[in-house]
């Protein structure tokens, strides 16, 4: 009787496992390649196409894109007063929204970290999360309803005896709407930053004789700054690039709706692309500044 049976070959699975265990870099490559390829091809590739378009022009007669390199679009943007005003106005509203959101977000974040019981903290956390993830368009639209002449805002103001205001389709309307839409993006980073402050630090400040006002200015605010900076990246950037809210609740031109109408009505993609480069450059400058404030640790 033959006893020398061939040794059991290891199953393929085990051999594969061992192979990948020995060649860790291959595993990394397999994991990293698909997302990296996607981002490079779809996103960075598209950004490159955007930059290329910004250096091309549209033929006035044929409406065709002419692929010859020129800085004409940027020259128009720079030399036309209207576009300079629109850019300044857009940066202005983005800054106003960012400051408003920081002021509104702080007490809520502070309440969640320092005052609320665990149960209430969880409830408020969900209360911030739901608006963050719920439909952006619907929330913009709701503010259009609220601020219309016969809307909820005017009704409440009249009931409170303030008389009605005429803010429908105005800069004010846009300021309120944008502040509302992006507020959760400010609350969560400030919450995260405040949560990282050890309570003993605040007690020490109190023990050393600081009143709450001084503790706030000298201890809490500096430590919360990275969180505010992180939140401001979103409030600033998202307000600056918005075109839906400007179209729906304001009557003024912002970078977003100029790009929008150049794609839709005017059919001038190269010019729209050039104007899109403006918020990218502004964001690059902004990111460099907030990086100094430690915003990236707060993300």
């Amino acid at each position, binding site marked *: 009787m033959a006893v020398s049976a061939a040794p059991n070959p290891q199953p393929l699975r085990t051999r594969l496992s061992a192979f990948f265990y020995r060649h860790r870099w291959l595993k*990394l490559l397999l994991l990293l390649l698909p997302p990296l390829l996607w981002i490079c091809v779809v996103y960075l590739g598209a950004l490159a196409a*955007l930059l290329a378009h910004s250096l091309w022009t549209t033929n006035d007669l044929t409406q065709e894109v002419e692929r010859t390199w020129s800085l004409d679009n940027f020259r128009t943007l720079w030399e036309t007063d209207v576009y300079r005003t629109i850019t300044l106005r857009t940066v202005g509203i983005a800054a106003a929204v960012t400051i408003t959101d920081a002021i509104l977000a702080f007490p809520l974040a502070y309440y969640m970290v320092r005052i609320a019981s665990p149960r209430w903290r969880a409830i408020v956390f969900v209360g911030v999360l739901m608006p963050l993830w719920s439909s952006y368009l619907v929330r913009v639209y709701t503010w259009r309803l609220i601020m219309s002449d016969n809307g909820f805002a005017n009704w409440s103001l009249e009931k409170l005896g303030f008389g009605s205001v005429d803010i429908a389709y105005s800069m004010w309307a846009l300021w309120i709407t944008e502040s509302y839409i992006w507020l959760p993006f400010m609350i969560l980073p400030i919450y995260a930053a405040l949560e990282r402050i050890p309570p003993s630090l605040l007690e020490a400040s109190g023990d050393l004789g600081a009143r709450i006002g001084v503790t706030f200015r000298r201890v809490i605010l500096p430590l919360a700054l990275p969180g505010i900076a992180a939140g401001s990246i979103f409030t600033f950037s998202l307000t600056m690039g918005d075109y839906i809210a400007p179209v729906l609740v304001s009557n003024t031109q912002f970078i*977003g709706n100029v790009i929008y109408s150049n794609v839709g009505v005017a059919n001038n993609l190269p010019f729209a692309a050039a104007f899109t480069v403006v918020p990218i450059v502004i964001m690059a400058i902004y990111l460099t500044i907030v990086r100094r404030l430690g915003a990236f640790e707060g993300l």
Partner: protein
Amino acid sequence: MEGRGTRISVTAAAALVLAFLWVPLLLIGVYAFAESKIPAWPITEFSTKWWSTAWHNTRMRDALKTSVEVAAMATAIAVLLGSAAAFAVHRFRFFGRDTVSLMLVLPIALPGIVTGLALLSAMQYGGITPSLLTIVAGHATFCVVVVYNNALARLRRTPGSLEEASMDLGADGWQTFRHITLPSVATALVAGGLLAFALSFDEVIVTYFTAGSQETLPLWIFQQLKLPNQAPQVNVVAVSVIVLTFIPVLLAQRLMRNDPAGIGGR
């Protein structure tokens, strides 16, 4: 250490801010039951007739179907790519690791109009006609980071010793993945997927540029808002959209209760 006065005033301010966040969402819920064609406050007559009108609107239904299809496909891509990226960044130290994280976050840190117009430029350049797939490609690009954030938050909290123990006990790589790694991140992936679905389902800024003549539900709403007298139907659909997205987000929140870093980082 805060005095009583401080505590009360901070609580009051927090309550006001929370009310600011929620009153509009509640108001749109009430508006959806108004009888009148022209939305005005206070609402004098209530009716559910617009719910039936909206439900029987075939164009709205088609848009809803498109939205669900797009969101499902974008979510599938986002879960695959996002979890792969999270594993790679968490498990390995490699050159350009921080750049990879930055590149994944870029599509949501830059304004949506940049992503949208960039994709439109690429489509024009490559002669790609808008289709369901171009919408999906756009959505997947910014959904990846949602899954990535959630998976990474969970991986950071999962001790690596569990996997080492599994290997020490003789499990091979596949068994360890199947019985240890996957169960520990599974709920985070589901949560990330749910959030990605909600995000894609609601997206309008990028979609406008990649959709061509196709219509997702948010694009349908946006279109209706430019027409007169469509408010009652829009109100109904608006409330439905809000409620529909609450479900996946609430589920995701429950799954990620212990690692809120993921769900907060949109």
